């Protein structure tokens, strides 16, 4: 009876969501948690994972094949290891969402997507309808393939453990897909899903220039990540990886400040777990005021610079 965690990384560092996923795994009250690291030249990542307290064993599959985390190749390796495990977990990131259903189908089991709570060894809670309802589901499958909403589980400590690292032979190249290129957004700001403070902008910002001019000074002052609504991303003000909501990222910061955001169902799905929600909007009927702890009905073009100045 043990848990296999599919760890996400960029071949040099472990993705933060993995520590939250390990936390979820400890709630399964299972005795053994193993972490699988698939990648290219990623021995350092395997060593990092081995230091996480509570990890029994790190399985390390190192091959050029795994450099870009293609789901076809990863899934076939995972399925080969699956018979030793009762649970296979991954963060519900784009990578986890991409690979895990493939694993589940190959094992002929259902996948439980994006769990937000563990009730018992076979029963979990997960959001449906953009977080407007929560389903408690019981899995009847012998192997439970699960993705975890990382923001609702605390991260386990990254240090203090001493797991063994075991090499795993790479699987065959399926040759079904080829990596071509990657275009990663570069930012000095904290990662959106991990930031303590998030400033999000909506359609009210009216242009890419205004979005930058109004939000960036405030974000700098608060050491905040910047996020956006779909409208803003579609209008091309910012890149899509900053989208918060049902189809973008789900965040749970200490403080969320929504600026010029009406609060559509699909956006609220991504912010509802924030500790404190602040809304600045000139429309006092905007739905976001129904969930905001502090609302300021004001023109953002004067209120936000004033707020930035006030924070000194």
């Amino acid at each position, binding site marked *: 009876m043990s848990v296999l965690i599919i760890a996400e990384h960029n071949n040099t560092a472990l993705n933060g969501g993995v520590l939250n996923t390990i936390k979820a795994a400890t709630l399964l009250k299972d005795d053994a948690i193993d972490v699988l690291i698939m990648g290219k030249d990623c021995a350092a990542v395997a060593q990092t994972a081995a230091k996480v307290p509570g990890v029994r064993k790190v399985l390390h599959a190192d091959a050029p094949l795994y450099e870009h985390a293609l*789901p076809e190749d990863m899934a076939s390796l995972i399925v080969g290891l699956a018979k030793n495990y009762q649970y296979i977990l991954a963060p519900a990131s*784009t990578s986890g969402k991409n690979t895990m259903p493939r694993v589940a*189908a190959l094992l002929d089991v259902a996948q439980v997507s994006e769990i937000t709570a563990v009730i018992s060894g076979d029963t979990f809670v997960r959001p449906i*309808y*953009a977080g407007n309802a929560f389903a408690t*589901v019981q899995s009847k*499958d012998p192997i439970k393939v699960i993705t975890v909403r990382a923001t609702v589980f605390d991260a386990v400590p990254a240090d203090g453990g001493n797991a063994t690292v075991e090499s795993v032979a790479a699987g065959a190249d399926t040759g079904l897909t080829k990596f071509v290129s990657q275009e990663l957004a570069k930012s000095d700001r904290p990662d959106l899903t991990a930031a303590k403070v998030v400033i999000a902008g909506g359609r009210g910002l009216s242009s890419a220039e205004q979005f930058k001019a109004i939000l960036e000074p405030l974000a700098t002052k608060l050491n905040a990540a910047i996020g956006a609504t779909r409208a803003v991303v579609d209008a091309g003000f910012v890149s899509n990886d900053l989208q918060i909501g049902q*189809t973008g990222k789900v965040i749970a910061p200490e403080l969320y400040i929504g600026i010029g955001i009406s609060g559509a169902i699909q956006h609220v799905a991504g912010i509802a777990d924030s500790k404190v929600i602040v809304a600045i909007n000139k429309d006092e009927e905007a739905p976001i005021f129904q969930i905001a702890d*502090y609302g300021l009905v004001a023109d953002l073009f004067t209120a936000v610079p004033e707020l930035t100045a006030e924070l000194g």
Partner: protein
Amino acid sequence: MKVLVAVKRVIDYNVKVRVKTDKSAVETANVKMSQNPFDEVAIEAAMRLQEAGIVKEIVIVSMGVKDCQEQIRYGLAIGGDRGILVETNSELQPLSVAKLLKALVEKEKPQLVIVGKQAIDDDANQTGQMLAALLGWGQGTFVSKLEMDGAAAKITREIDGGLESLSVKLPAVLTVDLRLNQPRNVKLPNIMKAKKKPLETLTPEQLGVDITPRLVTLKIEEPAKRKAGIKVPDVKTLVAKLKNEAKVI
């Protein structure tokens, strides 16, 4: 080539859903139903490939109750050539849908299956990936750009940190992101024409697929309600509240 597009009937995205008092499900009686928004993007993608002369036939498929015909007809009005409904009153979960789709793929032999990246009701984001796995095909998920390149699909995917480009060998399964395209409006004459397009009805039994759900839903609940807080009169008060009351800055 032939393309299969799968569409799902879901509660309209603008509806604020209500959970039934017995916590068994979400209320669907007298609630507006629509095509899953991601699936409209999938049909539009297929249409554009047809208009580019790459795709010859678009088959729109859906699974579930008889009323799913409406969503197939809608897809045919956008431009699909014919429809297939796999009719059942039983609950369908992504693994079952993927198995039904696999059976249809074996029957229809398309080169490409295009589906939405997720349905806005179950938010599972599984079916396309599961179908690709069952068929042993490559997958291109969360696609925001699509070009055909001979025997491969050149796709750009939305990933957490930005974008990724892949070449996926055909036949393949693609799941589309909202950013791929802007679906066209359906014109009235096309709705009339769609009524005359062929729509075949099959059952899971005819396709030889066991659709027994693997997950049992024990209950459905409303999320903890977030109470509306207070409105502050000015920026100074806001900062004071955040510092002294909420203690978050």
